[in-house]
């Protein structure tokens, strides 16, 4: 049998190869390169092996920041996912309110991160901000630049305000794709509202919820701009998340080696958690039969 070999086919692969190389492989390899070397300036590099990784993994500073990140993402997911589902459920399914609600929902998503940060920074100030001023007038001691709880609360509210819409829109898309017949069938069965939600809407939203979950986890785990604008990582180190710490190390202190090692560990954590989430959530309710009403 004669096979025709045509090497021109490689030409078709080159654009993708170049794109991926430029956008992902080369930058990552640069970081990898930094993470295993030390430099004292003058473009001289010394091989240090895994020393930076060991340092990072043992450093308390890293552990603290990681802990903050995990706590932050956990709180964000706990608020935004249920809230998003709730809002999506209460949105109209037809009529002229649909486009109005959708536009209103989409508005926060259009605002850039640093603008959101600035808005809330000014909003929360006691002297000129509406929120800060009102709180002060009500006798509530609210100050995000000196009180840890206030700082966290402000950043969380900012994120909820900014990103719950995304969860809403995803869930809404999942909800409207459920055929009307499901609801009819449930009515005929005499199923309660809760049963309809638990056994029809929730399973039907599973796909979009996985996406919402992953997107919100990744994004909240990589939070940078909001605390950077609002508190700069303070008070103390209380809002110094991994990303803020990373920037401090890489650009503030110019410790490229440890910063590179840290960013690689950071990325691996994101990948790992996402993988675990995805695997677990995709398998929920598929193999185990539920024996209850």
């Amino acid at each position, binding site marked *: 049998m004669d096979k025709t070999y045509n090497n021109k086919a490689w030409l078709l692969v080159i654009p993708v190869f170049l794109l991926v190389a430029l956008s992902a492989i080369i930058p990552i390899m640069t970081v990898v390169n930094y993470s295993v070397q030390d430099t004292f300036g003058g473009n001289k590099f010394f091989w240090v092996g895994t020393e930076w990784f060991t340092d990072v993994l043992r450093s308390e500073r890293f552990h603290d920041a990681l802990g903050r990140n995990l706590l932050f993402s956990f709180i964000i997911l706990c608020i935004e996912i249920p809230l998003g589902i709730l809002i999506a459920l209460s949105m109209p399914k037809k009529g002229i309110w649909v486009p109005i609600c959708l536009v209103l929902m989409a508005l926060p998503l259009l605002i850039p991160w640093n603008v959101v940060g600035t808005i809330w920074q000014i909003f929360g100030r006691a002297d000129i901000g509406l929120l800060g001023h009102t709180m002060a007038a009500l006798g509530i001691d609210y100050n995000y630049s000196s009180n840890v709880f206030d700082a966290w609360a402000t950043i969380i509210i900012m994120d909820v305000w900014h990103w719950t819409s995304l969860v809403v829109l995803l869930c809404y898309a999942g909800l409207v794709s459920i055929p009307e*017949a499901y609801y*009819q*069938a449930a009515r005929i069965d005499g199923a309660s509202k809760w049963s309809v939600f638990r*056994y029809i809407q929730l399973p039907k939203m599973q796909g979009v919820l996985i996406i919402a979950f992953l997107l919100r986890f990744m994004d909240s785990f990589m939070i940078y701009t909001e605390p950077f604008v609002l508190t700069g990582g303070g008070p103390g180190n209380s809002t110094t998340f991994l990303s803020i710490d990373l920037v401090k190390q890489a650009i503030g202190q110019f410790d490229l080696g440890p910063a590179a090692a840290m960013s690689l560990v950071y990325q691996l954590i994101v990948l790992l958690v996402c993988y675990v989430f995805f695997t677990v959530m995709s398998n929920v309710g598929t193999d185990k*039969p*539920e024996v209850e009403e």
Partner: protein
Amino acid sequence: MLELRNVSKKVGNTFHINDVSLKLEKGSLNVLLGPTLSGKTSLMRLMAGLDKPTSGDILMDGASVVKTPVQKRNIAMVYQQFINYPGFTVYENIASPLRVAGVDKVSIDKKVREAAELMKLSPYLDRGVLYLSGGQQQRTALARALVKGAELVLLDEPLANLDYKLREELRIELPRIFAETGAIFVYATTEPQEALLLGGDTATLHEGRITQFGQTIDVHNNPSDLVTAQTFSDPPMNVIPMQKQGAQFAFSQGKVDCPEDLSGLSDGSYSIGIRPHHLMLSEPKQSSVKVVAPVSTSEIAGSETFVHVAFDDIKLVILTHGVHRVDIGEQIQVYMDPAKFFIFDGENKLISAPKTGAA
């Protein structure tokens, strides 16, 4: 017994259901036959109580149920889409109506297994319902309807999304299985063939009205008017306007002797309906009339051939057995036997249908 008295459903300015009266007996099989948008689903929703009629009354065993909410009516409904609880196993899906009704565990188990056996689902009871084939999913939905022991079972084109083989199988099994439960069984379909295969009684629907209700075979053989005849004919019935002059029917291509028993009919315009399989391409022995017309299309479907011809703005479809090659544009002769004529008067009411046995 389910009775609909002058039921209408108006949405905006259009009647989805227009003055429908029906009486459906216990243990009967009733087919709602009509094209898409004729009101089959609307009518079923009214019967189920999912919608309230704009006017008229719906009675179950003599008592009005218009105000009874749907979950208290003891009905079951199966849809064209395969509707099951997505996260449940087959077993849990079938058991769900019983659990809502608060039946004890032992009876649930017994009933679920019986229904599964009838629907040939026994090997799949522990599977997630989304991991089944379409046919199995629909059988699960049917088993759920069956197990409920409902007084009224509504099936809205339940087999339309299944493949041919499964459709044939279930079409035979379904009436038998549900007949045993003694429920009022209502089956909506767009296909005349399906109505004939199911038997029972048929109500033909057209633009929200019931045009005829009676034994399926009677409605098919003696449609009360042209609309019913067209609804109950697939491919559609051919219609040729003719003038009766004395003892003959005349049309642009010729004349044909009027059947003897209709000699008393007054002269005037009539619509002649003739089913596609009663048109012939070769000259038959009995008296017949010939039309010469060019072929516009021909389709071969399995072991049959559909030939479409057109003359004087009249389109005819001829169904012939066997695979024939007919060239488009070719002039062909089409023969009609007056014994097979459906004759409709100026108001499109049936005057005469072909003798049964000859159909």
